[in-house]
């Protein structure tokens, strides 16, 4: 556990060691704000609601999160530092959870930096606090799932671009299988199954402010499952 924290600390600092973290943060915040206020016509609609925001961010996450996770393992493989790292007296799961924790912390930080948005909107009108809390919880869980997927794909290649595209595609597919447009074209019997599987449909119920333990368990198991795959893929290229 201590090793996990040491690795998480090192990884988290390395986000800020280069300009990457700052670029990500600025781009993400500017993009969400611009899209939210301009494209979604917040001021024209004139409603104190953040529904559009929570519709927008999961889509932005599809690009943003694979970019955050792509270098975590691919870079280690490419630079050969994986060899030094994995011959240190640490267990594979400690390294995997350490890396996840660092990127998760970065994600939570990014999401937290959008908090001025609901605070401002709350001053404009009557904001549904439950939906906001649910929405933010949903973002964190959804983002964490994307991250776990991104880390896993990153662990299988030494090419960051491959890692990015791989996790983008997997996240996109898992997100879309629960979207209504896709569901209507599918045979009826498969719909509940697809909805259960989809990262998107679980998000839409949390986002309404309905915090159901099933949804939380779903996201936690997605994270757990992909972290497990990550440990396996790291171990398959080395000893125990």
């Amino acid at each position, binding site marked *: 556990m201590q090793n996990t924290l040491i690795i998480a600390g090192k990884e988290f*600092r390395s986000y800020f060691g280069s300009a990457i973290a700052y670029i990500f943060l600025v781009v993400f915040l500017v993009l969400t704000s611009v899209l939210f206020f301009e494209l979604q016509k917040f001021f024209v609609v004139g409603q104190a609601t953040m529904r559009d925001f929570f519709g927008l961010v999961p889509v932005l996450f599809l690009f943003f999160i694979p970019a955050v996770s792509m270098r975590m393992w691919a870079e280690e493989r490419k*630079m050969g530092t994986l*060899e*030094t790292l*994995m*011959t240190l*007296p*640490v267990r594979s799961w400690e390294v995997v959870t350490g890396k996840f924790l660092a990127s998760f912390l970065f994600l939570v930080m990014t999401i937290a930096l959008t908090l001025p948005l609901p605070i401002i909107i709350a001053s404009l009108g009557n904001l549904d606090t439950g939906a906001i809390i649910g929405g933010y919880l949903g973002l964190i869980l959804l983002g964490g799932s994307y991250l776990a997927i991104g880390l896993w794909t990153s662990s299988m290649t030494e090419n960051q671009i491959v890692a990015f595209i791989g996790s983008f595609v997997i996240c996109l597919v898992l997100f879309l299988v629960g979207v209504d447009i896709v569901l209507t074209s599918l045979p009826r019997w498969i719909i509940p199954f697809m909805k259960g599987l989809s990262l998107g449909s679980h998000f839409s119920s949390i986002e309404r402010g309905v915090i159901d333990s099933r949804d939380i368990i779903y996201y936690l198991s997605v994270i757990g499952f992909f972290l497990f795959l990550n440990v396996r893929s790291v171990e398959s290229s*080395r*000893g125990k």
Partner: protein
Amino acid sequence: MIEVRNLTKRFGATVALDSVSFDVAGGEVLGLLGPNGAGKSTALRVITCYIPADGGSVRVADHDTMTQSVEVRRQIGYLPENAPLYMDMGVIEYLEFIGKIRNLNGPRRASRLDEMIEVCGLSRMTHRMIGTLSKGYRQRLGLAQALIHDPPVLILDEPTTGLDPNQIIEIRELIKRIGEEKTIILSTHILPEVETTCSRVLIINEGRIVASGTAEELAGQAAGDQKTFVTFKGSAETIEPALRECEIITDLSLIESAQGKVRYAIGSNKEEPEETLFNLAVQNKWTLTELRREAVSLEQIFTRLTTQEPIES
């Protein structure tokens, strides 16, 4: 300290290591010698628990690499080939990180860190980012990283590649000093390196051990190959028959004959044939202008072993 038994490793169809066995005693500096692609790095990677073996076993300080790998890794300091480091970290920051993972805490970590900077000659580089260090300093930092927890076993994969001649000498001196109290395996394809730093040599070719012993022992095994060069004043017609009669000469070949001198390369069944050859010249009243025995160098043994049939040792 290290026991390698029938170690086998395959990558797809190619056999990187074919039932390799050897021991390294405590305090020994073992040189792993072989051409590129012989399986040196693979062997070191198995010993350091980076990759699993397909067959056989490796024990380091009485711990098995497969079942007690974390314990094994605690005992080992490892410098992989080309010293891979995190380019975006600072020198101190990196050593701090390794120190923490190596479970060095508080004042002990600080004192080990200072010691490593001192021993590895990094004191002028402490404020630098790793990415801005030259190859030589990266290698030193890699060594510092491998030594920080004072491990009983040190494994170095080609520690001097890419360094300039001065740096090579410095790193070798460093290894020699460290080797006085630690067990070291180092791999290299540079021969003088093993002669100057290693107490024992293992020559690997195509995944098999083709020879082992001290540098002198290996040279001794190949004594039959040594040549003595002699030059006499006179003509080949008068000198050669007398040489042919000499018992200790097993192989005679005329190298050049010019300006009233003849030069021969002589293979002998005696280890030091100079005296006999000198007496022979005196008896026949030949004037001797050259008498030089060329000891077989590790280079020659290496070339012979890695290009021809393996010999049993």
